Structure formats: structure tokens, C-alpha cells
């Protein structure tokens, strides 16, 4: 697995755009490229998606290909599974990942298991895009970071981009994949800008991580919002501590090789992910690194995430719960 494409190297033509625009560009390109691709979800059409991701796509592609659904996550997610099994490539938007509780049956027992249970005789090219994360004062039922549940579930690929270029490349690969992929978009980073290859050929292989900044003293493996915060922190610490920042990007499959290579160099690892700490994404990274890279480690691995709480409403409380760069800095301080 090469990380060249993962970081967008090799594509000289880039533009600065937000994560939101990058995802929309990915959707636009894939809708243009393949007639079998269509987008569906609540208010994705004329309204452009409640968080504005689908934007004006309906104007270009019409209501058959960018379709508003009734408010029935189980109904349209289940329909996407049946539609994928019969020869189309639906891209489903679940407004807030917390609502995946409502359609978990179709994800858990149908989308994830059909291929295996049918002896490999069907493909399941469904893409689910959903939003995660706190920071908007949206309280517990609209702020969850639940990607661990689904990354844990056999039969599903799960990705969580941290940058604009990752958002575009992963979205395109998810849509092209014949396997079910869930994309977890952190809504706090939609406005983050970055350089994005504008080539239609630009994709990121599922199962790759991206070294976003090289460093020698400590590796920070981050996801989603924590990628940007860790990069800023690394810049701040430059000259004092040399921090290597990796955007994990793909939760399952996971690019263990890139993680191991980095830890071999730095000997220290901090994992920063905005999900509850117990039994989490962090644990999976830690397990893989210690299983194969234990002897590269010079210090205990550190985790940065959300304490095992829900996301509260009051800004004062929410701020307390969410992980930030200073938490990553504290973790680095503990091991360097």
C-alpha cells in the first residue's frame, strides 16, 4: 500500500478548497463518471443537505440522481442495500451518525453480512456518508462519534478523513468500491481548507494512512478534527519536539505498516481520536502497534479522546469533554 496517492503527491494540479467542497467535488465527479451512482438522503436535493455538503448537485444531475428521501433511515438504508445487490451504486447520507441507531439493522445484518452469508456471490457497493462530532452545541443526540461501532463490525469498511484531500480521495474510492464503505465526516472540519488534487483520477486506496508531517521524536496518529489540531501543534512545537503526524484515514482496513514504520523511527506514539476512549479506535491502533512493534517503543502509548461520557449541551461542558491540541501536547509531554 503506497502512501503517495494518500497524501496527494503525484498530482500536480491542486486547488485550495474546504473539506465540504472536496466531498462535493468527489460526488460530482463520480456522478459524472458512472450512471449507476446516485445520492439519496434527507434533504440532499434542493436544500443541499442540512450541513450543505450536497449543495447544488441536484441542479446538475436532477432529482433522479440526487433524491430526497422520507425521514426513514431504515427504509432508505435498506433500500440502498437491495439496490446495491441488484446493480446500482447508491450513496446514502445519514444526516447525523447518531441516527444510525435507527437503521443499524440494515447495516449490521444486511449490508455487512450479505456477501459473506451468500458465499461471496453478491457485491455490495453501498456508500454511507454521515457526520460526527461535537463542537456545535448540538447535545448528545447530534454529536456522537460512533465510528468505532461500525469499524468493529466485520464486513464493513470505515473511513474518517482528516483533511480536504483525504475527504475527496476517500469519497471517490468508497463510491468505486464494490464493498460497503461508511464515511465518517467530522462536521467541525467542513470549513477546513487544504490543497486538493483536482484530477478525476485522484483516489486514495481504502486501507492507507497518510504521513501528513514527518518528525523524529513522537508519532501522533490522528483522525478527523484531531489531524488538523495535531498539525498545528507540531508546527508550534517545531524546534522543541519533532512530531510526526499521521492521518489514519482508514479505520478498517487499517494501514498498520505505515504506523509501524513511523513508530520504529520515533519510538513514541500518541493516538488522538474524537471517540470515547474505552474499547475504541485508539485501542485498535495501540493493539496493532504493540503486537508487531513492541520493541520499537521507548515509552508507553498514550490515548487522547473523549472520556466515557456523552457530549453535553452547555458550551462550558462541551468544551471540557472534547479533545484538543492541548490534550495531545500533554500526552506528548508524558512520553517525550
Amino acid at each position, binding site marked *: 500500500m503506497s502512501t503517495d496517492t494518500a497524501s496527494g503527491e503525484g498530482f500536480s494540479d491542486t486547488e485550495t478548497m474546504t473539506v465540504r467542497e472536496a466531498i462535493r467535488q468527489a460526488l460530482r465527479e463520480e456522478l459524472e463518471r458512472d450512471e449507476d451512482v446516485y445520492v439519496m438522503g434527507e434533504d440532499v436535493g434542493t436544500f443541499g443537505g442540512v450541513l450543505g455538503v450536497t449543495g447544488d448537485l441536484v441542479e446538475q444531475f436532477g432529482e433522479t440522481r440526487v433524491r430526497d428521501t422520507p425521514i426513514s433511515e*431504515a427504509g432508505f438504508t435498506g433500500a440502498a442495500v437491495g*439496490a446495491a445487490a441488484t446493480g446500482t451504486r447508491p450513496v446514502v447520507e445519514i444526516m447525523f451518525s447518531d441516527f444510525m441507531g435507527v437503521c443499524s439493522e440494515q447495516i449490521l445484518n444486511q449490508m455487512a453480512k450479505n*456477501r*459473506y452469508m451468500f458465499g461471496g456471490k453478491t457485491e455490495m457497493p453501498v456508500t454511507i456518508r454521515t457526520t460526527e462530532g461535537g463542537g456545535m452545541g448540538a447535545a448528545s443526540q447530534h454529536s456522537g462519534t460512533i465510528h468505532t461501532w461500525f469499524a468493529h463490525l466485520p464486513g464493513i469498511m470505515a473511513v474518517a478523513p482528516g483533511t480536504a484531500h483525504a475527504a475527496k480521495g476517500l469519497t471517490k474510492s468508497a463510491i468505486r468500491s464494490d464493498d460497503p464503505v461508511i464515511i465518517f465526516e467530522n462536521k467541525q472540519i467542513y470549513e477546513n481548507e487544504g490543497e486538493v488534487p483536482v484530477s478525476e483520477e485522484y483516489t486514495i486506496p481504502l486501507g492507507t494512512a497518510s504521513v501528513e508531517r514527518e518528525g523524529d521524536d513522537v508519532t501522533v496518529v490522528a483522525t478527523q478534527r484531531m489531524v488538523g489540531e495535531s498539525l498545528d501543534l507540531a508546527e508550534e512545537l517545531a524546534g522543541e519536539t519533532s512530531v510526526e503526524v499521521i492521518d489514519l484515514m482508514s479505520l478498517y482496513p487499517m494501514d498498520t505498516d505505515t504506523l509501524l514504520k513511523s513508530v520504529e523511527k520515533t519510538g513514541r506514539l500518541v493516538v488522538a481520536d474524537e471517540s470515547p476512549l474505552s474499547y475504541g479506535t485508539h485501542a485498535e491502533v495501540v493493539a496493532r502497534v504493540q503486537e508487531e512493534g513492541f520493541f520499537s517503543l521507548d515509552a508507553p502509548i498514550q490515548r487522547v479522546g473523549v472520556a466515557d461520557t456523552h457530549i453535553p449541551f452547555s458550551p462550558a461542558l462541551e468544551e471540557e469533554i472534547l479533545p484538543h491540541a492541548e490534550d495531545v501536547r500533554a500526552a506528548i509531554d508524558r512520553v517525550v
Partner: protein
Amino acid sequence: MVSIDIETEDGQREILRRMLTIRAFDTKAGELFADGELPGFVHLYIGEEAVGVGAISALEEQDYITSTHRGHGHCIAKGLDTYKMMAELYGKRDGYCNGKGGSMHIADVDAGMLGANGIVGAGPPLATGAALTAQYKGEDKVALAFFGDGAVAQGQVHEGINLAATWDLPAVFVVENNHFGEATAMEDQHNVEHLSATAEAYDIPGFTVDGMDVTAVYEAVKEARERAANGEGPTFIEADTYRYEGHFEGDHQPYRTEEDIDLWKDRDAIETFKNRLVEAGAVTQDEFEEMRDEIEAEIEDHAERAKAADYPDPSEAYEDMFNANVPEINDFAARMRADGGER
């Protein structure tokens, strides 16, 4: 299998043949299970043959169906191979799912059979999705969902129907009202007398038909298919039927009496249809018996061959997860096995 013309003698014989095949297959499956030959659970379709065969005979070959945990009858009506079905019941590699699915998950997507289903009520949204594909691609295909009276209490059934109705999708929803969800009577699960009342809420046509009469089911589905294919949206059909056997093999059935069952057996769908054909001169009693014996012998043979067939190699447990190559599955497996996963 192509749609069957119930007006022709060939068609009538084929309908009879499929109903007999289901009866023979599930009778055999019940015996094998009782003898401890089969792993897992089996849910028998005996008594309900007219619903599956009547409905699917009215469809075209290219149409899709979704099924339930009680799916053998739907598979046979859709033309699936009874040897491969038996092999799947045994968990053998020759089975439809290479032994990974078993009785509750037999599927043949190429034949339009989108899977039996271990989750009550999961099928209707899947059928809605298949109907969406047909509409999206402009194909002359219809998707029919079978589900039980118990499943009508599941939310996702209604979400699937609402979506299909809203989008005028080419779907048909067929409730097999066999009067029980496991051990609980239909009356104790629903407040309506006829489940077809459901249709009203979605402003789609809804009928209750005699599910012991293969002709009645056929005609209702034929009409529904036409409507679906014409872009007029889904139809909701309740077929009033009965399962002769327990919910699963070994169910001691405290919820009903032998007399209850006999009342329905008096109206047995196979017997009724056969008698009608004999009267009309389409088959003779002898021909019927010959057909039945032939089918039973074939099922017997399929069961024996399935029993003798090979199990999958244990290493196949790690296959078929993804279309893409995902190395960690094999890596993890190799590390867990004392032999390093080599074979």
C-alpha cells in the same frame, strides 16, 4: 424460471409440480432435522405452498423476490435447485452459499432471489431497493417481498412500503398471514382484522386473498405485477394461509390444537388444486401420484447426495468477506492458529 400461464395445462402441471416439490422438500428437511442430521434451525413452509408458488408463478423470470426465515418454498417456487438447497441445509460446500448461510440465508441473486432472511421484517426495504434499481435503470423488473403477519408489526416494513409507494416503485408486498408469529396469535399482535388494511395508510391497493387457493394468489399478484410494471406503484396483498408444522421443528405448540390444524388441512392447497385439475381433465389422479412419487424420489436422492457431499475447508471461513483483498483477515487468522494458518 419464466412466468407460468395458469390458463394452460402445462402451466397448471408446473404449478402443481412446484407445490409438490416444496411439500416433499420440507417434509424431508423436517425428518432430517428431527433425526439430528441438520445443524441450526429449520422453519417449514408446509401448508403455505399456494402463496409462494401462486405469487412467483405470476412474476417474470427477471423479477426479484425477498424472502423470510421460512424461505425454502420461495426458493423452490423461484426455480432454485433442490440439491444445492439441501447441501446448504447440511452446511456443505455445494450449497447455494458454500455452507455459510444455511436454511435462513439461501440466496441466488442471479436468479432474482435476494435471500431468505433471519431478521423478521428486513426483506421489504430490500425489495424496495431492488424495485428502485429497476425503476432507475428503466428495466422491466418487479420486486416482490414476502413477509409474515408477525413482520407487519416491524417498523422497517412500513418504511419500505412508504418509500416504494412515495416513489411509485415496481414493488409488490405479500404478507403470508399464517396466523402466528412464533407462538403468538395474529390477533394478539395486531388490532386490525385484515392486515391488508395497511395499504390504506399508503394509498396503495390492498387485498386479502385466500392463501390456500393458488389461483387466487396468482391472479392477485398478476394484477399487482402489471400495475407495478406500468409505473403505478406497489400493491399490498395479504394471503390468508396456515402452517401445518410448528414454528420450528420440535415446537410443542401449546398455542393450538390438532383440530385447528385439521380445519385447514381440509382445505389443503395442493389437494384442492389437484382435484380441480382432475375434474377439468388436465391431469389424472394416476399422473398426479406419479408426479408426486417422482418428486419425492428426487428429493430423497438430493438429500442423500447432500449428506455425502464435502464440508467446506475450514480455511474458507475467512473467504468472501469483501470483494477487495483485505490482508488483515488472513493475518489475524494465521496468528490465531497454532499451525500458522498453513494447510
